[in-house]
């Protein structure tokens, strides 16, 4: 695995609060437009609900809420990025998603102590590409909340 992290990466780039983030293209199933979300009562605040993704009931997480960012209205450019982690399928609501880029391994640096407003524990690293700065997310950590943490420790 350590060797893999040294290789070039292809990532899907999305925007959140005017910053650019990246998730590995292998973990992304599709990018969807906003659609009706059915609220699921008594779940975490950042769980917006579930959608019907081609017959599969898929939970949706609002990344702004997850990262404690300011809430904005969903609009035409709002997207849901469907990601796969372990045996889970989850949609992430982001402001915009429209780019796929290759990141050379040497451009990736470990997460600095403070990056923007996103808590450092969700960040796998940052990539500097000329003038762009990409925050690479650690998806399993982004998705985990207490219950899942417990599950992981029991199983792992």
């Amino acid at each position: 695995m350590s060797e893999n992290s040294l290789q070039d990466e292809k990532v899907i780039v999305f925007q959140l609060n005017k910053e650019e983030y990246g998730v590995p293209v292998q973990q992304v199933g599709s990018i969807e437009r906003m659609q009706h979300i059915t609220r699921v009562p008594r779940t975490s605040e950042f769980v917006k609900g579930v959608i019907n993704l081609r017959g599969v009931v898929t939970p949706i997480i609002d990344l702004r809420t997850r990262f404690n960012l300011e809430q904005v209205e969903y609009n035409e450019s709002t997207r849901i990025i469907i990601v796969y982690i372990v045996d889970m399928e989850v949609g992430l609501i982001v402001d915009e998603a429209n780019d796929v880029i290759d990141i050379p391994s040497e451009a990736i640096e470990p997460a600095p102590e403070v990056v923007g407003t996103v808590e450092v524990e969700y960040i796998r690293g940052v990539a500097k590409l000329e003038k762009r700065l990409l925050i690479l997310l650690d998806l399993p950590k982004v998705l985990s909340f207490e219950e899942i943490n417990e599950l992981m420790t029991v199983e792992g």
Partner: protein
Amino acid sequence: MEMSQYLEVFIEESKEHLQTVNDSLLALEKNPQDLSIVNEIFRAAHTLKGMSATMGYQDLANLTHIMENVLDAVRNHQIEVDSNILDIVFDAVDDLEAMVTDISAGGSGERNVEVVVEKLKRIEQGEKPADVQHSNVDVTSQHNISVDEENASLPDTISDLDEFELTVLQESDERGFTNFQILVELREDCLLKAARVYMVFEVLEQIGEVIKSNPAVDQLEEENFDHTFSILIVSEESNEEIKNRIEKVSEIESVDVKEFSINQYQNNSQSNGQDFKSEQEVVPSDSEKELETTTSSVATMTPPQEKTEEPSTTKQQTSQNKTIRVNIERLDVLMNLFEELVIDRGRLEQISNDLDHTELEETVERMSRISGDLQNIILNMRMVPVEQVFNRFPRMVRQLARDLNKKVNLDISGAETELDRTVIDEIGDPLVHLIRNSLDHGIESPDHRVQQGKTDEGTLSLEAYHSGNHVFIEVSDDGGGINRDKVLDKAISNGVITQEQAKGLSNQQVFDLIMESGFSTADKVSDVSGRGVGLDVVKNTIESLGGTITIDSKLGEGSVFSIQLPLTLSIISVMLVEVQQEKYAIPLSSIIETAIVKKDDIMHAHNKKVIDFRGRVVPLVFLKDVLDVPVEEEEDYYSVVLVRKGDKTAGLVVDSFIGQQEVVLKSLGNYLTNVFAISGATILGDGQVALILDSNALIK
């Protein structure tokens, strides 16, 4: 060669063959004289051996081979079948099953089977099974299976020639043709065995006339043979010529051409075949006795007499059902895709209504009808006969009856009843439990039965049937029944109920007590049941499947355990309700009825809102509060859905009823687990997701 792609097929087929062996062994126990059953077992075992050898599971192949030797000896009247011998063969089958299970779990199928191998070998050598059972097995000393016997199981000899074939052979002899017996061995790595067989036959047909082959041609075509087959042929050509011609076919390991002497064959078969024939003449008179159905079987050691079925029926069965195996996941994908189609169909219907275009309307109507039919087909594809589960019971009952020294006749009916695959997978264990329970606690010992004026053989019936949207499975016995007073005493002493409560209970309620946890009516813990796992587990499993179980019993006459199950778990009937802007589905199975209640009729008791519903005080649960639904306005009337959990009732307050609907049950996925009061989700016609309420969680 890459074998993994065949592994799944191999495992499935091995299980089928083992099931055949199992069933046939049980049938053989009833009719030890019926050689067609032995042949049936032999065929299945032989195919299994071939398959496992090809797949490289040598242990599996070896054990099967040794088992075959015993069967062969039975077939050749060298040994007599009795329960003791069958016990050992059953042990071998158990080992084989364990090996296959191991393989399907990703193992190598290796297993220490020395003990059972030793026993089998001793039987084969004609030792009394009783000695075999009890002797100390010295594994190292016994390694001499004679070569003859080893070969006897291979299809290198032609036997069972009928009159017609004999006549043809005799005539050809007189006309100066020669009869040859040819043994062809294909190479181990031969891929298309049937194709090679075909090529060999084609060669032979050019030079003579094929009289018979072993295995039979249809078996060869289906590749139901190991690597060798033999052919009886009449030809003018010389021994060498035939051999050379066959060897031109590729992938052939060896060809052995021998002259076939009719005289010698007849001499040989006289000794063996004589009693074979005389038996065949004797048997039909027995068969006039009452014929039993194929599904019933005796699980006792009663001396077998009846001949159950014509040998031909087994052949018919194998060719009747042509099926292919489909991975259940693929069916799920198909189902999901289909739901997409249904959702789009809904949209199309909407559009065509709005446009009011005749041709479009007709097309959409047609499409709706076809997709409705498609839906039925897809749902039916997931249905499996309950036979799959019932199959293992004859064997289990036989063993249990022997262990408990009881005589039990197992009667199975309705095995063809179909259930959804998901239900089938879950129902096996509860049934095993109920059957064990019936055998252990229900059916009395033979002596005891006779004392009570019953026959010494008890009857355990297993029945499945459809009724409405449900499938019923009943396990009934004609045993001692449930002693009401004993149950009550126990319940009181265990603190399940009080003395006071005990008085007013109906029989039904008393019997239900035995399914409470920590309850067992057995006076002593036996080997079979009473291991601390009670009927409460059965009840829980069945209820988790959305089913119910009821007990009916008469003291001294027997008990009936009746299980009611939904046809499928993936589709349920729900009542759709609206709470403000949100739609929820409540399973119909938990709804008693619906009501409209005036705000003024609501009463307060212990700080809770309740209503008087047909004389009962029913607590109200306001869904909009429980589910944190954003509220806009209050109304003067409440729509209430009355739901039950056991004997408790509650009223769920909603804003409006939408109606009853069949929906496809979906899980919320692995991310959202244990959401309060939500048991799943479904997709509605407009493509939106509606959550399914778990009313059990709402009733305290």
